[in-house]
């Protein structure tokens, strides 16, 4: 099977000289279409850093990331931005929704950045809000929604451009256990498909059951990959 993401000998350090610390150190792994790959590990072990490198947000000091036969870190900055726009959907930990826009406008942003027609983008965004169960909230500003609902708006925004790769950082950190499980249930049944690869960084052991594989990190290194509970 062709991997969705193929990361090779990635390294990222911060600081110089005595202060030089490796956030990611010699990491090699592959992620596949149709799977949910969890990245777990103690705080400071390099999970967010690794996620940023493979999603085209943070340039590594060495190593390669190949997605769709392209070595993404060989691209120009604007091309990398374009790559993120077309291929990757992000759900940030604190969502980063625009409080002054409606939920539909928030969700439409990736399409608008893709230079799609405004009305068409809003229609498409509304459709995705319906998919995440918020069809009746399209005109509201995000601040009028609950935490779980905002999370779903963020998911709709990540999905609207139909990306191959979905990136979640701590998706359930600010949700209660039930809501967290419901979000994961939704991701598992409605978001995952065999043309899609989902990477999730989490501390939350309550949701480990939704993982296909779990990759453990410590001190910037991968210390093991095991099959998740859903296998």
């Amino acid at each position, binding site marked *: 099977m062709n991997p969705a993401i193929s990361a090779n000998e990635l390294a990222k350090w911060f600081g110089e000289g005595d202060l030089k610390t490796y956030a990611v150190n010699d990491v090699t792994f592959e992620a596949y279409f149709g799977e949910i790959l969890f990245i777990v590990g103690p705080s400071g072990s390099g999970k967010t850093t690794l996620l940023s490198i493979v999603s085209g947000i*943070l340039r590594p000091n060495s190593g390669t990331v190949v997605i769709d036969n392209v070595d993404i870190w060989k691209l120009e900055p*604007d091309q990398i931005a374009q790559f993120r726009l077309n291929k990757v959907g992000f759900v940030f930990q604190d969502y980063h929704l625009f409080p002054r826009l409606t939920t539909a406008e928030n969700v439409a942003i990736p399409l608008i950045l893709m230079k799609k027609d405004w009305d068409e983008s809003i229609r498409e965004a509304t459709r995705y809000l319906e998919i995440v169960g918020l069809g009746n909230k399209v005109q509201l500003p995000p601040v009028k929604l609950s935490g779980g609902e905002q999370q779903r708006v963020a998911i709709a925004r990540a999905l609207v451009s139909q990306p191959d790769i979905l990136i979640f950082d701590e998706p359930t950190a600010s949700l209660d256990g039930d809501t967290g499980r419901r979000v994961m249930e939704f991701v598992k049944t409605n978001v995952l498909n065999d043309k899609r690869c989902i990477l999730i960084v989490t501390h939350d052991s309550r949701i480990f059951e939704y993982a296909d594989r779990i990759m453990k990190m410590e001190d910037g290194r991968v210390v093991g990959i095991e099959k998740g509970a859903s296998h």
Partner: protein
Amino acid sequence: MKGILRIAFKLLVNDKGKYAALLVGITFAVFLMVQMTSIFSGILMKSSSTVINLGAQVWVMDPAVNNVASSIPMPDYVLDTVRSIDGVKYAVPLYSGAALVKLRNGIFQSVTVVGLDDNSLFGHPELVEGKIEDIYAENAFIVVEDAEIRKLGYPTVGTDFELNDHRGVIVGIARVAASGLFGIPTLYTTYSKAIQYIPSTRFTISYILVEPKSSDAIPHIQQQVKRLGYEALTKDEFMQKIANYYKYQTGLGTNILIMTVVSFLVGFSVSGQTFYTFILENLEKFGALKAIGAKGSELVYMILFQAMFTAMIGYGLGVGLCTLIITIAKLRIPDYSANITYTTLGFAFFMVLIIAGISSYIGIRKVLKIEPFDIFRG
């Protein structure tokens, strides 16, 4: 591109409080800048009204003259000499002085009397009533119909009055391009009548108006007049000299300049600060846009658009408000000297562009500096 500008627009105007503060800042700055500079240009225009109205190309005067009203009389030989200068087509004397008029109802009113050359009536105003030849009649005066005419009780042809104990009668009503600064009515008569009616010093010529054969002759004329110890200025040079007098020697210009700078600074700090907070508040969101895949240039366009849009609306409001107030003021106060010129508008526009430019520059720097990684890490 249209889509992201629409997003930018919504981010801006949906933040009603800040948007209002931005507009107030810019509107205020524009209003004050336009108001100040308009009053100044109004005063300058009025101070040069005689020069504008008479329309002579070259004015000969004593070098110490710094505004039209305070002319220094010149002896007759200067006129003769000027007439003999090469390149002079003709040269005529002009009298300009003040007199006291006693109206029929016993009220006194000071006036400016302009005495035109008897032979040519050079520089005479356009009449809306009466015939210009009537100016030669006994006691004849032509009154200018401007904001000040009411001070003479709206005279008509045939109205008579006393002027320095002589009888005067209105034979015509004239219209001129610019009215005077000092808020007193203007009467035109002939040079000979003016010096007869108004007590004067030994010398009587206030100015010599020169028509050169061609504009190429002007430098030579100026040179020759200078040899006489007098000064020949073109219309523009004279107006500039008057303007400089009001700008630099009366404190008026400096004060207006200070006020304009203060208005700019206040408007700039209000709008600049508000825009900066606006950007700071949205900074993480801009970072998220970057992470999602917005290019740096797109974020730059968004911010430029927001700054320019606000600036233009604020400019429009400021200019509109200013026009409204000046119009109202002119209805109530006929002498109100404010004159919105293209220069004034252009100046305020330029200052607003500076405000928008600096504000967006600071915003753009901030936004370009944020790392999506930092947003991602939370």
